[in-house]
């Protein structure tokens, strides 16, 4: 039958307080096999991987590699046993070369120097064998995200990994880079390596894996051969029911509500923007696609008011803004959902009531003569909790205690309060479960229906395509021309995301 298991998890249980992140999970991975671990955010995938690699200690259960039980909580033992991990967030030193990064930690601290020649030839051999083209002498800081990921994989292979764990490897890649990654993975499997692939994207799982394990709420709820199942069935397993895709009704396109003309911005850290022009119409969702780190953050900061343009003008409803600050943006009628709900969207150690008034505490609604009206603040918090279906013990609970989805609903409620004519939604559904994602989408569509102009920034192309009336692509700080719904194919958008110019696209 099938080859022998190289990795075996037995009855892994991990609790965080009252939360059971992993509940008695057992499975094995065989030689030369790609196993996909599918599950929503918060299903326990990352916790499981951290246990497997020794970052966490399981409360119960064991991990076996090649027939030997691994000591708990020891990443070095996992490495020595031939397990390599490619994290979602790379663990590379930016100011060192590929060679130094790959060899880092493989040599004794007492070794007088690095045998560069030998290391370099081994890296080249590995790189050629597996299609991981990268220059060993290049500095990491100069590499693209896709190249950095190749270095991470090389790092694992250099240590003779026989089992490779990839945690959401495509989250930061363009569609084209993802294709290349899949080709590499197939080569690795052909050489007898085993791969455990973590994802929540259905199409990747079908494209690459032999077997799928589905996690939901910390439990292993299903195991299927990939060729014996389909994405609908997997999605249903993952969510525990059918999911409805958002219904986008036809809405009359309105006038321009928000306009950037010839705007340049130089943020203290981040991608500068040059001569950017963008118009958002009422009753329309404009989607901004792109690989993260291509200037979306700068554009979002500009729209939110946290940075001011160095030249050019910003106009809301035709009125040109003079001084541009967060308060000015709010005053002009921009509802803002920030990218990072923990660091920017909320103040974790303050209560729900204190958080929901943060943009409006100075208005007559919540204060008089410098004294706050806590009754009004609590009432507002209760309204949002009710209207947005937030699970929250009381307005006086610290917002830190809420789950990501509930926190996001509150932030959305705060941003949409008073029906702002312009809405900035920056990664509004990142890290949310399917139910919360659907909810956020329905609220944005509702705002669109009442005539708001919405900019939706997302790294999830499927989300952009599902919601947007027009799609922009941002690459290296430049904005593409917009395309109407369905005008450009996914692969065309992918090429734009990868930095190809529109002219090149038309010529092809």
């Amino acid at each position, binding site marked *: 039958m099938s080859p022998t298991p190289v990795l075996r998890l037995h009855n892994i249980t991990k609790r965080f*307080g009252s939360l059971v992140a992993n509940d008695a999970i057992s499975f094995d991975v065989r030689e030369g096999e790609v196993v996909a671990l599918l599950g929503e955010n918060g299903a326990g995938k990352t916790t499981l991987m951290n246990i497997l690699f020794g970052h966490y200690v399981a409360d119960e259960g064991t991990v076996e590699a090649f027939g030997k039980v691994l000591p708990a909580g020891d990443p070095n033992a996992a490495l020595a046993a031939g397990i390599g991990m490619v994290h979602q967030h790379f663990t590379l030193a930016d100011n060192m070369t590929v060679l130094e990064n790959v060899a880092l930690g493989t040599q004794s601290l007492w070794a007088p120097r690095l045998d560069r020649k030998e290391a370099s030839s081994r890296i080249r051999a590995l790189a050629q064998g597996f299609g991981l083209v990268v220059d060993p002498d290049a500095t990491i800081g100069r590499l693209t995200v896709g190249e950095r990921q190749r270095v991470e994989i090389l790092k694992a292979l250099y240590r003779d990994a026989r089992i490779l764990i990839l945690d959401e490897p495509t989250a930061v890649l363009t569609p084209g880079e993802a294709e290349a990654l899949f080709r590499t993975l197939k080569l690795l499997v052909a050489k007898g390596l085993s791969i455990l692939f973590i994802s929540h994207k259905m199409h990747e799982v079908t494209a690459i894996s032999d077997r799928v394990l589905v996690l939901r709420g910390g439990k292993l709820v299903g195991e299927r051969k990939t060729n014996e199942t389909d994405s609908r069935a997997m999605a249903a397993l993952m969510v525990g029911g059918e999911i409805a895709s958002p219904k986008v009704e036809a809405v009359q396109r309105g006038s321009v509500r928000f306009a950037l003309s010839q705007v340049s911005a130089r943020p203290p850290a981040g991608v500068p923007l040059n001569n950017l022009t963008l118009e958002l119409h009422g009753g329309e969702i404009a989607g901004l696609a792109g690989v993260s780190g291509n200037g979306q953050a700068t554009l979002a900061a500009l729209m*939110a008011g946290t940075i001011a343009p160095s030249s050019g003008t910003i106009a809301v409803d035709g009125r040109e803004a003079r001084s541009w600050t967060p308060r000015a943006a709010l005053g002009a009628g921009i509802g803002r959902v920030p990218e990072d709900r923990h660091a920017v969207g909320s*103040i974790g150690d303050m209560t729900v009531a204190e958080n929901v008034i*943060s*943009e409006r*505490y100075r208005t007559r609604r919540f204060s008089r003569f410098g*004294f706050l009206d806590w009754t009004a603040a609590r009432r507002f918090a209760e309204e949002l909790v009710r209207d947005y279906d937030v699970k929250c013990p009381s307005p006086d609970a610290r917002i830190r205690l809420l789950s990501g989805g509930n926190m996001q609903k509150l932030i959305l409620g705060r941003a949409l309060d008073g029906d702002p004519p312009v809405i900035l939604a920056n990664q509004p559904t990142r890290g949310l479960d399917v139910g919360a994602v659907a909810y956020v989408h329905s609220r944005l569509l509702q705002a669109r229906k009442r005539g708001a102009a919405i900019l939706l920034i997302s790294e999830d192309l499927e989300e952009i395509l599902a919601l947007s009336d027009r799609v922009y692509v941002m690459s290296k700080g430049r904005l593409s021309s917009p395309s109407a719904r369905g005008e450009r194919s996914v692969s065309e958008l992918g090429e734009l995301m990868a930095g190809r110019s529109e002219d090149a696209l038309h010529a092809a």
Partner: protein
Amino acid sequence: MRLEPKPAPSFAATLLYPLGAVAATLVFTSVLALLAGASPLDVFLLVAKGAAGSQFALMETLTRATPLIFTGLAIAVAFRAKLWNIGAEAQLYMGGVATVVLGTGALPLPAPLLIPILMAASMLAGALLLLGPAFLKTRFGVDEVVTTLLLNFIVLLFVSMLLEGPLKDPMGMGWPQSIKVLPEARLPRIITGRRLHYGFVLAIVASVILWVVMKRTTLGYEMRAVGHNPEASRFAGIPVNSVLMKTALLSGGLAALGGFSEVTGLKGNLTSDLSANFGYTGIVVAMLAMLNPLGVVASAIFVAGIFVGADSMSRAAGVPSYIADVMVAVALLTMVTAIMLTRFRIRWR
């Protein structure tokens, strides 16, 4: 070893851990008492008696607590906004300087006018002193711990210079001290024959006002928001830099009131030993009170009691009064640990 947050601290834990902290402090200081050759029980009883065993002792403790309440409030308000003001010592002295400059005859006014003017002037002096470091922090990112700490030494030397020069009392037999403030500028005693003065009442009023400001006003809300998360505050439209400036003015002003109160209530003049490290001890007071303005009153009385009690204990038992410093320090460390343990649990590996 790592810390995992507890979802909700149990009631028993919030009660037991601080008691454990007190017990640990007593155990630790017992060892020191034994080393000094005294019975720990005697030492503790003598400290307690010296701090609160008689009306006289209690009045002395409250007198000692007065400047600590002011500096404790100054620290509490600044730390709440994460403005690390280590310079309450200097601000207190500036308050004393302003009081003496205007209160020794420059303004011949009746008490109901003079006292408020001196209060306002001293607050202004302390506030302006902290404005510099706050400006450097908000504008250029200069670490205010360094600037406020170093200002302490500069101001102390500046005060010495004034006391040897322009402010020197010509009748002072050569001592570096200023002339006494006018009788109209003096804060009256609360009980005749005891040193406790109305500065203590002023301190209580200040702490209640500050408590209301922190809880109920937009300014208090802004300061707490900026302290907890400046980035989110900025995003929400809270003017972070201007809030930090206001915090600095308030904090510096409160510390300076301590100087005003010591000069007009207790000493009568300015000397270079006006403060017995009140600015630094204020940090301990504020931390013990978990930055709560009302808690500052209690923790200032507690800390003052230990110092006053230890002084009288050392005369009776022959144990050096430095044990008071150790007690306060250990109490702070164990209390901070206890507070942390009520909110987190430790996981070994």
